[in-house]
């Protein structure tokens, strides 16, 4: 942790604003979660501006996924890698504020008119889609594990665990970490 770790990494205020502005734009486009716009973030930060290198980018996503909490925090790491703490504030404010404002507005509207036919048709019609999205996400996350049979076995084991027991998922996470560590690379 040197001065550079906390510094602006040579970015000016104008560039910070630019950074926040670009992430604000992505916030409005990020339907289905911020990870869907990760490829565009990579293009902007790595290719167009060279503010972080490709390895830093991948590591940020891997760390945020391994750590507890919402995966959106990879955006905080990207901001920090690009321009220190202020960079983190810029990317997080950018990615959070516009979509949050819309969500609150739509959420209230929907709740106020919850008996309207359109609102009910929306909930009823989109419920199966939501389950399909979860299935697809789980599937896509499992795909890269195909080369590791031991890891692959953990997937069905976890499904049984969540369906048949009442225990906290933390137990299964610990099992996964232990199996992965002992199984080696």
């Amino acid at each position, binding site marked *: 942790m040197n001065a550079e770790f906390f510094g602006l990494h040579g970015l000016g205020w104008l560039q910070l604003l630019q950074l926040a502005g670009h992430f604000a734009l992505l*916030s409005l486009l*990020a*339907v*289905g979660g*911020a990870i869907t716009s990760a490829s565009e973030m990579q293009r902007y930060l790595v290719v167009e501006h060279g503010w972080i290198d490709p390895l830093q980018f991948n*590591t940020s996503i*891997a760390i945020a*996924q*391994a*750590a*507890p*909490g*919402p*995966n*959106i*925090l990879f955006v*905080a*790491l990207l901001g920090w890698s690009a321009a220190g703490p202020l960079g983190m504030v810029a990317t997080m404010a950018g990615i959070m504020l*516009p*979509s949050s404002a819309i*969500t609150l507005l739509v*959420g209230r509207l929907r*709740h106020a008119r919850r008996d309207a*036919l359109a609102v009910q048709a929306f*909930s*009823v*019609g*989109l*419920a*199966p*889609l939501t*389950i*399909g*999205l*979860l*299935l*697809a*996400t*789980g599937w896509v996350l*499992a795909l890269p*594990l195909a080369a*590791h049979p031991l*890891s692959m076995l*953990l997937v069905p084991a*976890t499904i049984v665990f*969540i*369906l048949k027991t009442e225990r*906290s*998922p*933390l137990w*299964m*996470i610990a099992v*996964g*970490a*232990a199996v*992965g*560590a*002992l199984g*080696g*690379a």
Partner: protein
Amino acid sequence: MSVIPDDPGTVALAEPELHAPRSKTELFVAFTWLALQGFGGVLAVSQRELVERLRWLNKEQFIELLSLSQVLPGPNIVNLSLMFGDRHFGWRGALVAVGGMLAAPLVIVLALAALYAQFSAVPQVAGALRGMGAVASGLILGTAFKLVPTLKRNPMGVWPSAAIGLACALALGWLRWPLVWVVLVLGASGFAWAWHRLSAQRSLTR
């Protein structure tokens, strides 16, 4: 802003065992605990905590909130926290729920990032990360399977609901079609069919 949430009254009639957060502190603590259990994503844990343990939502309400969170821009779990907090304690509740969801994990993620450089070459660390990734994927799939029975009660009917869910999973997971188009096309179909069925039901009861 009224501190009393405006829907638990009607909810309590249908499902007497449902509860609500009693204070913003309880809301903050619950969302922090929820986030801290969420390795590889918080969705699976939020179903377990909000629906099964705390009973702040039933399965249908959870899907409803999640559906809206998914079609709106922004991170799903953040959107879900915002709307849940807002419904119980207004915009302050929204801030508290999202704050609980993000604050503690942010500190952990930053600490991990600072540590990572020193340990990334150790094969056991890479293996442990992969094992946790496998469990994260299983947790999401298990949560999806757990919500499948709600389709039996869906007013669209079991088969149309199952068809939409399966089409969505295949289009996104197997064919890797762009999310926006899949959501637009299947979402519009579901909406239209649900509209048709619901309005038929309404004219029957009238």
